[in-house]
């Protein structure tokens, strides 16, 4: 939904009682100074587990034979105590985060979290327990605790868990296809890159710059009483920065954040391959599956300076041409969250809210979420994406499915204990827990707008616009608790007049209503313009869990959208 400073939330995924009983380390947060990240996260990022030396992150994985043996201990212990279903997740979660400003390295965090989470159904009720004592004894005790909790909660249960069947998949392996493991890249090489990014930004007019690298590796082993033993190795990467230009005489400052995308890739994302660059008007560049961080920092510094004197936007209706690096967040907020079934049902009512995309609208099979051009898919299999895995955290093989087909709402995002409400027999496979000690629940898969079928570049699209604004990058964002009314800013705004990009604009934000907005979608560029945007720390639940998710799209045009001027004097 969003991330507030407490990044609040944990799971409530079912109509049934689910108890999260944890004996564990408390979650810690790192305060951030970077403005762009601050704006997004409420100034902190979560860190799981203990701080360790960098080399410890390369310790060999626990071998699958040992993990299977330990998992069987949990499955047997739970069954002996009366569980009718059990899943066990043995997880090693690793993070390396680097923080710099100008010529200084501010912080390097290496953290590792290792333990086991056991979820059971007993007497028709969920129970969950977790422990960092990954021994035969520790695991057996934890499994017993999970069953005891389930039985205790069964007394106040209204109706039993209705779990969609899932055939065991046997012993399988899935790894994020990476070319260069980011954890094997020497820290010095990473520092050198960030120092280069910072110095190039300063050389090109930045007053200040902060830059970061975030690396995540989840080594997850899942086993269930359905007969699945799933070993997965998942990698994610996010390079980012914020450049600030200051004019002290005028008493003004402007920032420009990186237009990178967090990815489900290794360090190769930072190769900056020319073949992955997508040209746009005014020398602008979009990055597909390879990012040139130094080049982007140079452009950012120049553009931040240009923003200081950019023309303030006259409020009114404009045709918007939205770059994928901007549109991704609009998709996330206005399509991704409202189609989460647990939200629709009311499980998030006290925090993130509910949804306008109610079951009665879906049942009509004619609810026009958007124009006929709008096809939005949910998917856990798209290469290079953050939400992409082989199997979800309840052992369901991942797939792709439609959420919006030819503009009509056709489905939601649902997991094993809720998918039955939709009349489906199989989970969509979008269950996730952010750590071994968090209980898994419904989380957003990658949600993407399909590209247009006819050949169309961003140059062609702009040629057709008389009065419009071209918007790039993720800026300020806000949406109501049922996902009707939203307001989005961006990083870069250019005026379009009679088919040409003219000058840079400032103080731009657009406001719309989700259904109205998606119905004003009139043109989508083709697959050659398609790329992903991502959210690395998406928050949901009370207490909080994070997840990472990608949103693909090509540049898209929306007609007659209300633009406000956000300039003020204080």
């Amino acid at each position, binding site marked *: 939904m969003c991330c507030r400073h407490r990044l609040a939330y944990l799971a409530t995924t079912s109509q049934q009682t689910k108890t999260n009983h944890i004996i564990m380390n408390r979650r810690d947060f790192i305060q951030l100074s970077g403005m762009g990240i601050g704006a997004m996260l409420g100034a902190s990022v979560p860190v799981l587990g203990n*701080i360790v030396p960098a080399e410890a992150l390369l310790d060999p994985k626990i071998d699958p034979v040992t993990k299977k043996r330990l998992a069987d201990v949990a499955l047997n212990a739970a069954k002996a105590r009366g569980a009718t279903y059990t899943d066990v997740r043995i997880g090693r979660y690793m993070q390396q985060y680097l923080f710099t400003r100008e010529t*200084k390295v501010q912080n390097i965090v290496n953290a590792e979290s290792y333990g086991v989470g056991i979820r059971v159904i007993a007497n028709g009720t969920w129970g969950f327990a977790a422990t960092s004592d990954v021994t035969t004894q520790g695991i057996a005790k934890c499994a017993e605790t999970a069953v005891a909790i389930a039985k205790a909660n069964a007394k106040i249960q209204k109706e039993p868990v209705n779990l969609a069947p899932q055939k065991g998949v046997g012993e399988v392996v899935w790894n994020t296809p990476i070319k260069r493991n980011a954890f094997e890249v020497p820290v010095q090489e990473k520092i050198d890159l960030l120092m280069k990014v910072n110095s190039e930004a300063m050389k090109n007019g930045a007053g200040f710059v902060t830059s970061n690298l975030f690396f995540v590796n989840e080594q997850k082993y899942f086993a269930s009483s359905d007969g699945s033993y799933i070993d997965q190795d998942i990698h994610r990467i996010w390079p980012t920065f914020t450049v600030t230009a200051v004019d002290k005489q005028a008493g003004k400052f402007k920032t420009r954040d990186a237009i990178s995308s967090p990815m489900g890739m290794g360090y190769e994302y930072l190769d900056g391959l020319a073949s992955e660059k997508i040209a746009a008007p005014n020398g602008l560049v979009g990055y597909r599956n390879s990012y040139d961080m130094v080049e982007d920092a140079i452009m950012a510094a120049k553009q931040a300076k240009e923003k200081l004197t950019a023309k303030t936007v006259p409020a009114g209706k404009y045709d918007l041409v939205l770059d994928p690096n901007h549109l991704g967040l609009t998709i996330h907020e206005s399509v991704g969250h409202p189609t989460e079934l647990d939200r629709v049902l009311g499980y998030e009512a006290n925090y993130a809210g509910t949804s306008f995309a109610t079951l009665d609208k879906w049942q009509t099979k004619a609810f026009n979420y958007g124009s006929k051009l709008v096809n939005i898919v949910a998917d856990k299999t798209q290469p290079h994406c953050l939400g992409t895995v082989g199997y979800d955290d309840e052992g369901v093989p991942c797939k792709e499915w439609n959420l919006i087909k030819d503009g009509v709402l056709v489905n939601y995002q649902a997991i094993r204990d809720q998918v039955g409400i939709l009349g489906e027999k199989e989970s969509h496979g979008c269950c996730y827990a952010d750590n071994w000690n968090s209980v898994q629940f419904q989380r957003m898969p990658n949600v993407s707008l399909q590209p247009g079928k006819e050949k169309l570049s961003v140059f062609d699209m702009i040629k057709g616009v008389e009065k419009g604004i071209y918007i790039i990058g993720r800026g300020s964002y806000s949406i109501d608790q049922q996902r009707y009314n939203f307001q989005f800013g961006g990083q870069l705004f250019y005026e379009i007049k009679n088919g040409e990009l003219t000058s840079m604009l400032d103080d731009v934000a657009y406001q719309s209503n989700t259904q109205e907005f998606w119905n004003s979608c009139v043109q989508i560029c083709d697959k050659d313009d398609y790329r992903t945007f991502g959210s690395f720390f998406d928050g949901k639940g009370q207490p909080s869990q994070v997840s990472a998710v990608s949103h693909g799209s090509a540049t898209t045009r929306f007609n007659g959208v209300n633009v406000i001027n956000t300039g003020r004097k204080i």
Partner: protein
Amino acid sequence: MAIILSKEEAKKIIDKVLSFSKADEMSVSLSGGRTGNIRYARNSVSTSGESYNLSLAVTAVYGKRSGTATINEFDEQSLEKTVRRAEEIAKLAPENPEYMPLLGPQKYLETPSFNESTAKIDPEFRANAAFNSLDPCAKKNLTAAGYLEDTTGFSAIGNSKGLFGYNKYTSVDFSVTVRTADGTGSGYGIKDFNDVSKLNTKATTEIAMQKAMASMGAKALEPGKYTVILEPAASIDLLQNMMRNMDARNADEGRSFLSKKGGGIRLGEKLFDERVTIYSDPMNGEIPGSPFSGDGRPQENITWVDKGVVKNLTYSRYWADKKGVPATPPPSGFIMLGGTESLADLIKGTEKGILVTRFWYIRSVDPQTLLYTGLTRDGTFYIEKGQIKYPIKNFRFNESPVIMLNNLEAMGTPMRIGGCLVPPLKIRDFTFSSLSDAV
């Protein structure tokens, strides 16, 4: 080992850790506690649990290089291993040119932040608290979703220069959203305390229930500038966001709402209505805070805004040293002085206006002017001739707390919200820029 260590137990462990040090400087922080929660939705409990934590972080320093390692085992061998690990990490770390030598011994206040009643909370207490909130809703065909979280903990710090500090604390946070069965009405209640005996989940829920029922059938008003009465749950986020932007370095660097045209900062300038006074006091009985900040600086009574004039900014130790000023840390909570009127009195004294229960999804739009956007939620009402007339549809706002605190009409009695004391505020010309259909 107990999870809540006494001052003496904590000091013993910290001294032991420091005795293993071979580094130039070493600091240790030891914290532990228990956090419990219960969550419910659709009138039924959905999640509940307890977690325990006791962990130690050691930071070793060589010159301007520092390294941190953490551990949650406390035998001598583990402690020594952690010290060695922190030392290894420090030796490999890049130099931090902004490193400040550790503080020597400090004098800390004894803040009244711990309450035995909160420390005694058990799963049964939480279940009852949830039941007292759920049950009245179920009886009235309303749907409750709520969350209660309580923490009992301690925090101890020490270093190789003889600094030692210890604090024990408790807290409880409760919030509930009540919706009508048809989904056309929604109300909200929220409370936080150190002392759980002040919490009545039933009474808080009853306010949310009233708001849910009264907000059915909302009418649409035109967006525009309105006089508003902001309940503390509405104004708190904007005020907290402003207080978080009181950093002197950003202001000096020209990238803050406190930076001045032509250079310089607005410290000492009158920036708000003269009735605006904001201070912090860790000894305040309503919002007792920690006696020290994360880096060991003492928390004291500090006036941030006095009669509309900016009196103090927050400093890192590095920046304060560079500027030759006292290194005032950011406070844990703040107090905004108000008036003596109740919320009901404020409504009575309003010719035309809008009562706002809370704001939602607040995000920065322009850091230069502290412009924020967000929406009203869970109970927005039109006031005419001193009375609540009818519920209205939710609005999106675009407003700056700086402008808001200049358009001050009246203030009520301060109430605790989010660890702060904030009065209900009556503000003229508050900018609502569009309507939302959300309930």
